């Protein structure tokens, strides 16, 4: 549990520091070319969730986020003994969610800046917190699928 909290906190701090660096150095909507036709830094303000869905529903999105945090707590953490790898993954997940929640409460939008063009597909601009969330969820899903396959109902 302690490990989980430390990892979450580190994620949140890194996420917030990058966001401060971006917002103080890059003008809104400005784009800096980093790797030709692959990676740019573009400062955007996303009022919606992923891919701008629910755009503009600040309060609703904050409520949904808080509910998600509650669900994660009850499903994974409350009265549970968590394994080492789980504390790392859940730390990343919670850190990412809280990182973006801080933006949404403070500004009403999430600060996005990572702008990738992969195989000519312009991927929606995202941020470090999104990476923490997506990676931890993918690994958690893979692990739980594997456990199911092995008939290991440890949970």
């Amino acid at each position, binding site marked *: 549990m302690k490990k989980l909290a430390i990892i979450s906190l580190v994620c949140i701090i890194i996420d917030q520091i990058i966001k401060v660096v971006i917002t103080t150095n890059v003008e809104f909507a*400005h*784009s800096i070319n980093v790797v030709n*036709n692959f990676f740019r830094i*573009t400062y955007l303000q996303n009022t919606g969730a992923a891919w701008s869905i629910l*755009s*503009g529903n600040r309060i609703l999105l904050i409520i949904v986020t808080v509910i998600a945090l509650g669900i994660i707590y009850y499903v994974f953490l409350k009265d549970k003994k968590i394994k080492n790898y789980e504390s790392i993954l859940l730390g990343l997940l919670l850190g990412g969610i809280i990182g973006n929640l801080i933006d949404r409460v403070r500004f009403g939008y999430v600060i996005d800046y990572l702008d990738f063009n992969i195989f*000519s597909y*312009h991927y929606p601009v995202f941020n470090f917190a999104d990476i923490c969330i997506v990676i931890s969820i993918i690994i958690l899903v893979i692990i739980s699928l594997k456990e199911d396959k092995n008939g290991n109902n440890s949970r």
Partner: protein
Amino acid sequence: MEIIVDKNDIRIDTYLTEVTEYSRSKIEKLIKNNDITVNDKEIKKSYVLKENDIIKINDIIEEDINIEPEKMDLDIVYEDDDVIVVNKPNGMVVHPAPGNYHHTLVNGLMYHSKLSSINGEFRPGIVHRIDAYTTGLLMVAKNDKAHMALAKQLEEKTTTRKYIALVWGVINTDTGTIDAPIGRDTNDRKKMAVTDINSKDAVTHFTVLERYSNATLIELKLETGRTHQIRVHMNYIGYPVVNDPVYGRRKLIDETGQCLHAKTLGFVHPTTGKYLEFDSELPECFLNILKQFKDS
């Protein structure tokens, strides 16, 4: 017409249907008549292109083209012996192109007066363009001297061109500048995109005029005039133009196309040297959609 190929391993008939306005059957006909060559060699329609191949199209079948003046009810905002400023309605194409010779703004202007000739027979008088479903002010040259003077101002970016657009999403910042190069979309040759491949610099400045619950009314000033610049740039930063059938990403509201209007146009008059500026009202199609956002 000469085209330098910017794609690899693509059949010539497929490529030309994408990059030109010719139909596939027209292209096949031209190839059959040996009117299309690649690097000065005759080819078959199954010929596979390599990047930097030079395609030459000798369109003699087009000799029957005749761009005819048509009587039209044009909204002419200003006119003298050198220039016309016209307020283009929604859905009107600016000038004829292969395969489409009628009902364009140029047809109407030809009926109205004599136009400059240096931009070729397809584009008499035309010094700059706006998209078919974009409305608003366009300046047109009536003689070659005026044409060169206006073209020079456009090149030197000394003209004033302000647009009004309604975009999806609420922009929190009051002003912003988008600086990202625009070129052809490598996946869909009919679209433009922000890309570093075969692209040119493009800069768009915007100012927020009014915010609605899920849209923003903005004023835009262009530093460059790339094809579809505003539509591509606003989509790029996540605020696509409302009702844009190509770059809009969201549901369409009606058939009138993107909520984009060329509101203000200013330039130095070619002969008097005086600065002129014209303003236009938002068209009905724009106001109709805007009303829905104001009410909600």
